[in-house]
């Protein structure tokens, strides 16, 4: 995609630069009194694949919405590339969001859906169309550009949704349990495709899931979260090399990471039960 193509990652030096997103003491209480998130300190580093892992109700989606700027924190500060949310959206500071469901416009064809963020930004039609074509090629749906969303399977709709997020060449991609509603086989395939996209395009991703296996397979780092109130319990690096393939899913290394993550989640669950008694 020409000039805006970013560099491939070049080792650990990049990840120690200015964080993409920096959260300091971010706390969220909703208007109805629900304390969704206790103060969180978290950095999102450039080029990493950070997963927010935890059980339902641990505030991981709330945290992601805060990072997306869809919610404002009750206290604490969030900085994007060292600035406020208003400074995002420009060159080198683009956010994109992939929701739990495909959230496609049913009245618009696949290419129209993918082009949407560019259309809204008044990008010239021909340029937007070619960017959409390229984004669809990345997710392997080139021949479905003229289809309507209802003509596609759930997994394909989700890939259209990812193509729509990629079309703006985002510098930070936020994904809220994107494959949660899909069957296990489709989910594993899409996880593999996503991992490849991330590596090949040097994306920075924050990914929310409640699947430990998915977190181990995809992430360079996992933030384990606990509930009542939601908080980050531990940050665990998954140092296994990429590319990770199906053999990695069943390897002892993966199992060891899964055991570590699962212990943290379980301990948090036990603590939550104890504190609620």
């Amino acid at each position, binding site marked *: 995609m020409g000039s805006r193509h970013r560099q491939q990652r070049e080792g650990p030096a990049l990840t120690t630069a200015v964080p993409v997103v920096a959260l300091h003491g971010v706390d969220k209480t909703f208007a109805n009194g629900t304390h969704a998130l206790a103060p969180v300190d978290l950095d999102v580093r450039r080029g990493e694949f950070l997963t927010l892992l935890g059980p339902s109700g641990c505030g991981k989606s709330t945290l992601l919405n805060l990072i997306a*700027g*869809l919610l404002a924190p009750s206290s604490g500060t969030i900085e994007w590339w060292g600035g406020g949310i208003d400074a995002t959206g420009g060159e080198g500071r683009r956010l994109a969001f992939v*929701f739990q469901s495909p*959230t496609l416009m*049913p*009245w618009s064809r696949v290419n129209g859906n993918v082009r949407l963020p560019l259309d*809204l930004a008044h990008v010239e039609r021909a340029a937007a169309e070619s960017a959409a074509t390229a984004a669809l090629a990345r997710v392997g749906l080139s021949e479905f550009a003229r289809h309507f969303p*209802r003509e596609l399977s759930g997994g394909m709709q989700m890939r259209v949704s990812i193509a729509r997020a990629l079309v703006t060449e985002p510098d930070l991609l936020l994904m809220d349990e994107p494959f949660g509603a899909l069957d296990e086989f489709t989910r594993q395939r899409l996880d593999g495709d996503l991992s490849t996209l991330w590596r090949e395009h040097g994306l920075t991703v924050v990914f929310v899931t409640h699947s430990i296996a998915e977190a181990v397979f995809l992430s360079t780092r996992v933030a384990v979260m606990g509930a009542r109130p939601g908080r980050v319990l531990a940050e665990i690096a998954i140092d296994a090399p990429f590319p990770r393939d199906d053999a990695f899913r069943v390897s002892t290394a993966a199992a060891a990471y899964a055991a570590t993550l699962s212990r943290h989640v379980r301990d948090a669950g036990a603590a939550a039960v104890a504190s609620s008694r």
Partner: protein
Amino acid sequence: MTPEDAWLRWARIVAPLAVATIAIGLWQLATTAYDVPVYLVPSPAVVMRTLVTDHELLLRSLGVTLSIALAALAVATLLGTLTALLFVQSRWIEMSLFPYAVLLQVTPIVAIAPLIIIWVRNTQVALVICAVVVAIFPIISNTTLGLRSVDAGLLNLFRMSRASRLQILFRLRVPSALPYFFGGLRIASGLALIGAVVAEFVAGTGGSGAGLAYQILLAGFQLNIPRLFAALVLITLTGVLLFAVTVSLSKLALARWHESELPASE
């Protein structure tokens, strides 16, 4: 398409036609068998004959009624949609004005038609206004509901993409509202005709501006019951036709993407 689907398509047309044929047949049989006088219940054959002999008069009246109904439907669609667009601009506007839309809906048209006819000098315009009053509510309420029934995820996506108010309105709210709008239009098409007929009854316009309602009134006074029935048949057929046209419009606009217009087998 499987043979079963093809058969179902035929059944959809044939079954109601069969019901009509049986009903008309029974009606014909009963009027002949019991020798019912024509000024009480004319037989279908007599009604048909009247439709043919009085066709000039009846078709002219049909033209008058239909043009009033169509004009009213057009005005109701335009005004109703604009009102709905206004309502979704702010909750305050909707809260302040929606009760009056309801007021318009619950006021019996026969009660206010005489006033409208007195106030508006041009009778045709007065009749159109009456029919608009009857037809506009489903358009306002359905379209307002539709404009508000926007997928929350898509709305978030638009906001994250820094979409302007106008972009959200025309690229998200309006397409989301289309199925609701067409639902309202179907109801309004029937109501516009009813409104036109009721207003004519009240106005009692004769002469060249005489619509089907006037023919019914006059035929009633003259005990010309076959003509009354013939006019009634024409009104009913017109209503069905209007409904069919709005259904086709809806199909045309939504067929490719909305669940309501997809074949049942999918």
